[in-house]
């Protein structure tokens, strides 16, 4: 693991990002010089890139639509250098609005509709958006860049409708448990670890009532923890009562969890896949991470085309560029969670990052099929009521 950490050095990432930036910058310059000689291309056309190339390096930007679209997304779906390069090279810019939870984005899109053009959502929220006519299906194979995806990512049944695919697959991760083996007995493989009275005020979980209740449901053996019966809610709540004394804090953000693990205040935490490497990168203790044997919940997210989006002519050209392996690989190095681009995985191997990529399951996208996926459920209110009952006075 020490070796792994040494590979994750910030300097190396900067070198990688710098190389991408320099090459793309040069290509932008060359493109600007050759604008008058560019040939017309359909709006969805984008540079076709072989894995390992830099976006824009193998083909000059085409005179496709230029402009600005509105994107409702999480902060880990993009990074500034990438957006700057796309704006400079292709003339496509994004007004980006961040949101916290899936339901937050759902509420906003429901309220403003086509004022948003592109929206990111998780797993079962994607068909939920479609059922409510908030997004449009599209032919994913019309995007050349889609050929860079793992085939499994182009065939998720939950994201397939007769009219086409419901979203462009982005990233995924299960909720896992991580612990500091210096303080915690090794060999844990179950949610029960969180409940052990030995770890009073040493556990951090994220302040997400519905998710916490969902994985307490998994711990209790509930099959569908977002659609629990009253009896199942009661089972999950009973485990939450056991968990409460062990909780140091309900962390508002993943960074708070990382901080608590790093400074040693917390010994155990529920995390998204990859957060443990962030702790170690920041000089925290070496952690052991596992997916509980009872199963876990997880997320996989997609970019969706909002129905009636005023700038939807920009979206396909944008996705063609944004989803190129080079950007996806660089995004992975920043955010440390697997994405669905097989070409990006191969690129990471070429860049000497296979150990990290494999550690974070980048090569195992089929793992999502074993997770209980996040989504809107019928037991949301009951879950919140139970959560409040436990964490109120």
């Amino acid at each position, binding site marked *: 693991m020490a070796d792994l950490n040494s590979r994750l050095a910030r300097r190396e990432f900067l070198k990688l990002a710098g190389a991408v930036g320099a090459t793309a910058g040069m290509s932008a310059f060359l493109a600007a010089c050759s604008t008058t000689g560019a040939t017309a291309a359909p709006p969805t056309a984008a540079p076709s890139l072989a894995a390992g190339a830099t976006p824009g390096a193998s083909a000059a930007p085409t005179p496709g639509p230029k402009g600005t679209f509105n994107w409702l997304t999480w902060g880990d779906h993009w990074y500034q250098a990438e957006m700057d390069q796309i704006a400079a090279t292709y003339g496509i810019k994004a007004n980006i609005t961040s949101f*916290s*939870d899936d*339901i*937050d984005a*759902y*509420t906003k899109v429901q309220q403003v509709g086509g004022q948003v053009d592109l929206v990111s959502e998780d797993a079962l929220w994607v068909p939920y958006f479609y059922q*409510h006519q908030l997004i449009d299906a599209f032919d994913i194979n019309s995007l050349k860049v889609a050929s860079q995806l793992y085939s499994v990512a182009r065939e998720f049944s939950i994201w397939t409708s007769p009219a086409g695919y419901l979203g462009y697959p982005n990233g995924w991760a299960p909720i896992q448990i991580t612990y500091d083996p210096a303080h915690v007995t090794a060999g844990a493989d179950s949610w029960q670890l969180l409940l052990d009275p030995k770890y009073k*005020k040493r556990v951090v979980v994220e*302040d997400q*009532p*519905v998710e916490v209740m969902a994985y307490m449901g998994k711990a209790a053996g509930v099959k569908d923890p977002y659609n629990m019966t009253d009896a199942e809610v009661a089972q999950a709540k009973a485990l939450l009562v056991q968990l*409460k*004394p062990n*909780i*140091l*804090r*309900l962390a*508002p953000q993943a960074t708070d969890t990382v901080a608590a693990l790093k*400074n*040693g*205040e917390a010994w155990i935490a529920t995390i998204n896949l990859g957060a443990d490497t962030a702790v170690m990168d920041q000089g925290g203790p070496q952690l052991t991470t596992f997916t509980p044997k009872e199963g876990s919940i997880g997320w996989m997210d997609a970019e969706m085309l909002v129905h009636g989006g005023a700038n939807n002519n920009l979206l396909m050209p944008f996705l063609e560029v944004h989803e190129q392996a080079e950007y996806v690989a660089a995004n992975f190095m920043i955010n440390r969670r697997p994405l669905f681009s097989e070409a990006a995985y191969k690129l990471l191997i070429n860049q000497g990052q296979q150990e990290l990529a494999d550690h974070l399951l980048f090569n195992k996208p089929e793992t999502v099929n074993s997770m209980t996926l996040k989504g*809107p459920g*019928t037991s*949301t*209110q009951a879950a*919140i*009521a139970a*959560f*409040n*009952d436990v*964490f*109120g*006075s």
Partner: protein
Amino acid sequence: MTVESPVGAPAAPTAGSSSGLLQRFGRALPALPGLAVLVFLFLVPMAIMFVFSFWKTNNDFVAVPDWNLGNYARFFVEGTYLRTFIKTLIMAALVTVTTLAIGLPFAYFLVRYTGKLTQRVILLAVIVPFWTSYLVRVYAWQAILGEHGALNQILQAVGLIKVPLDIFNYDDPGVFVVLTYIYFPFALLALYAALEKFDFTQLNAAQDLGARPDQAFRHILLPQIRAGIITACIFVFIPILGEFLTPTLVGGAQSSLIANLVLNFLRNDQFAEGAALAIIIAAFVTVIMIVFRKSFRVEDVVTSG
């Protein structure tokens, strides 16, 4: 057309005349923006919340007009809400009393024993934290109160403790300390404004007439700064009833206040259920204001604050 009144002021125009209406409208014009803010950003949202509070949220996260009292009943039937609300009241009361206990002697000292320049400098120092975001200030306390935070390190360094204290580490005492820190300036400024107008020679006069210092304080000073004290109480006590950020950031699993429970509903689009809890808190605040109203006038708050 206007008619001179007996005392020389222009008489009110005849009711119903067009010029009268125009004049009234003209007089009301400057008040319209404020009125619009009050109506559209306060009364209308409150009315919507009130209506929502009797509805239900369906499985599509939509509040639907399925009229019921269940959302209100939840507060009284499920003990956690009442207990947490009482805990919130206790926390708010403790912080209010503490800020007054610290703020009154400090404001007294400032007004009575320091010059205007010193007062300005110190008041500026009190206000300076407001230049930084609330969020940043509360986050900073994590570095002070944490297990390996500054407080424990200092106490260990001076030999007062051997192992880190955990009473301030994501627990109620930590929330109390941070709330006191956050709201102390509001109390101090209200008290300072009241004391600044007080004529301190009255205390000397009272003592010359045989009053002990504590009697002079209770019977001469306190009644005259009562409006300032009540203002301080309102500025501290009522906002704490809606506090959720400080318990979230420096509180632990045991430290939820009532607003945290309300928020859990609202951020998951359970608006009807959250609205009912919020209305109950708002109703309680209204009752408090009515009680206060009997002992002071709104103008007192304005003039003291």
